[in-house]
């Protein structure tokens, strides 16, 4: 293998400026995304979720029957103890109210997604606010900051000491059973997790050298908290949010089981469907199995993606 002199020179020059490509830099987020794309777990998770989201978005327009159409009752095929199973017209059969299960599953995807996402956002927003303020106060705030932090954290401790179900049930009692209630109740349960996570992360970031560097540049503390400490503390919170999406869906189902789910049968939600199927387990267990499997697969999708994100965003694996 011989290379001509000019080529050699070129090669060496290129090497001397190895990274001198006229390209924009790759931020840590982009890096993480690249790693994510290479992770098979992430791909499986993302695939599940894509299907799920697609179904949630367009499915309701394509379903064969209305989700509240109690045709089985009209037709008189539903009797106590008799619920017809799958047929050519009704792929998943009727439910106990004589409605088409397939249509309800499809329409339910949207509600399920909505509950998961909004509940997580609520938890995230409240938790991140408390945790962010506490973390910034503790990390940068001096003596007053420590006091603010202590007060907020004691509050979080109290929330933690409350059994989560009691919290959810009492929220539901206060607000009445509705979709919003489920979202708020499930969201509130994850508040302490987000708050503690963000706070811990921010405190550790606040001790790092680049914060000191910014201070020495003369940047204000509030600005440091927002532009440096917060963005660098977000990774674990984002991962947690993804994982919480999964648990939120499951917990919404648990709330439905306790009779606190969304009452509006026009917008079926898988958790509610699962809960509603309980009295008919003896007649047609499939009524419970369809939504349960839906929930499990969706939760699995979020969890897979979350775990993959955890790996992708892990600073230890950063190279």
């Amino acid at each position: 293998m011989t290379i001509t002199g000019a080529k050699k020179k070129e090669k060496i020059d290129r090497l001397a400026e190895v990274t001198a490509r006229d390209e924009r830099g790759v931020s840590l987020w982009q890096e993480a995304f690249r790693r994510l794309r290479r992770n098979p777990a992430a791909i499986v998770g993302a695939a599940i979720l894509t299907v799920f989201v697609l179904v949630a978005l367009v499915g309701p327009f394509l379903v064969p029957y209305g989700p509240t159409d109690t045709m089985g009752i009209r037709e008189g095929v539903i009797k106590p103890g008799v619920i017809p199973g799958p047929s050519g017209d009704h792929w998943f059969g009727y439910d106990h109210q004589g409605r088409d299960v397939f249509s309800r599953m499809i329409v339910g995807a949207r509600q399920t997604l909505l509950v998961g996402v909004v509940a997580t956002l609520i938890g995230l927003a409240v938790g991140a606010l408390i945790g962010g303020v506490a973390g910034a106060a503790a990390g940068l705030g001096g003596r007053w900051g420590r006091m603010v932090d202590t007060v907020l954290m004691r509050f979080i401790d109290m929330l933690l000491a409350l059994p989560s179900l009691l919290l959810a049930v009492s929220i539901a009692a206060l607000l009445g059973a509705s979709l919003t209630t489920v979202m708020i109740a499930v969201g509130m349960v994850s508040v302490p997790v987000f708050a503690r996570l963000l706070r811990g992360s921010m405190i550790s970031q606040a001790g790092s050298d680049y914060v000191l560097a910014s201070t020495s540049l003369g940047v204000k503390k509030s600005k440091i908290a927002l532009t440096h400490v917060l963005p660098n503390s977000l990774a674990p919170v984002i991962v947690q949010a993804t994982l919480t999406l999964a648990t939120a869906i499951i917990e919404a189902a648990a709330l439905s089981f306790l009779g606190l789910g969304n009452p509006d049968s026009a917008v079926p939600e898988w958790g509610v469907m699962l809960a509603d199927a309980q009295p008919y387990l003896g007649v047609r267990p499939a009524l419970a199995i369809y939504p349960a499997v839906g929930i499990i697969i969706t939760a699995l999708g979020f969890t897979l993606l979350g775990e993959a994100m955890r790996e992708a965003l892990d600073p230890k694996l950063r190279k």
Partner: protein
Amino acid sequence: GCAESDRDDEGSSGNKKDTLVFGVAGDPKVLDPSFASDGESLRVARQVFETLVRPEEGGTKVSPGLAESWTPDAAGTTWTFKLRSGVKFHDGTDFNAEAVCVNFNRWYNAKGLMQSPDVTAYWQDVMGGFAANEDDTLPPSLFKSCTAKDETTVDLAFTRVSSKIPAALMLPSFSMHSPKALEQYDASNVAGSADDIKYPAYATGHPTGTGPFKFKAWDIANKTLTLERNEDYAGEKAKLKTLIFQTISDENARKQALRSGGIQGYDLVGPADVEPLKSEGFNVLTRPAFNILYLAINQKGNPKLADLKVRQAIAHAINRQALVDSKLPPGAQVAVNFFPETVEGWNGDVTKYDYNVEKAKSLLAEAGASNLTLKFHYPTEVTRPYMPNPKDLFELVSADLQAAGIKVEPIPLKWSPDYLNATTSGSDHDLHFLGWTGDYGDGYNFIGTFFDRQKDEWGFNNPALFEKFKKADTTADQAARVALYKELNADIMNFLPGVPISHSPPAIVFGKDVTGVKASPLTDERFATAEFKS
């Protein structure tokens, strides 16, 4: 090897034959039925205690209990009871007229916290107040005095004529307790402070009656209550040696427990499970329907609802037959009156509202209420004997209403206390489900409870109707009273304060080899007759 299945294998032929474990939906609250108002406490009381009069087996008619006969005096205010002789309480004390008076006087002379409405709920429900009312809001007592004329004759005097007597005396709350035990265990000493009531020892661990079973143990930690055979029972002795009530609140869990052999019977069977369980060979008993499910319409809620036409439209809009066929247990019926057919005073000749969407629509149009939106309350997390699956019913009724052009805003609430609170107080509710299971076989116990005065639940004021109720209540003559009930039923169905929906027969199930229990419309099942067939 496992302990459980070992026992199952050999036990089925040995000691298990005379031990029945029965699954119930909730823990009993108290063992002294004087203080009880919940079904589970009363179920226990029915096995341990007896009352002067009791419902006939499998029916609602007043029949002899500890009293062999009873007769009112001419005014209808004093009743003479002839008692059975030779009856003994579990502690060996004799049952006699003296004992009856001790019991009635104990209730009548209640003092302090025993007058609290949550302690003596049924007494207050039936009798009103006490000898000395400590609270001004309490009404005067219906009960006046008790006189033991001889060993087996006792006179109960009342302040006025009431439809409740003697039927209400069938209630387990009027069970006869041993005077000695009452004394010994300080039964009337409801201690503590008003917000911190503590039951006496008698009520928590020493119920002493004359029933076929004796109280043995109450294991709160294991949610079981154990009764054993009263070997000295005056009548036919119980076939079971031991009867255990085990609390399993979840309906599916009860079914699974029955199937796995952990229990040999349970109450509150889901309607959907009746057929499957039957086909599996379990003994599913259907109680005669002694209840009513109605759709209440609150006339204070939406002003349009005060319009009879709108109420009629609602009644026509609902396909009650489809609902009964698809959602209620076999044997359920569409209701025409606010009370079941088995109660005297039932009237088949009232205004009927058949399912007719077109009619409903036109009635609405006539009333100028084509664009009606109604708040529809329904309870969650509950099964009542008259309402096995409220949410399902709601969905169907709501679909029917929508089909007739009435928009529905669903408001699901937890049964206790949110739902009850919301539907029976205030005026911020338009439609809701509620119902009633009769305490005893008198019509007043149904319609009187609902309509004898102005109530937040219905939000209407109909003095004429209320007057008629008063008259019925104070009519001593049975036949005259029944006639009044018939009239009232017709009036009510014309006025249509709500829509009576159905009477559904609640089911109770026993293991494949359990026989001898007769289902009672009043849930007065007698476990003394239960036995394992060999």
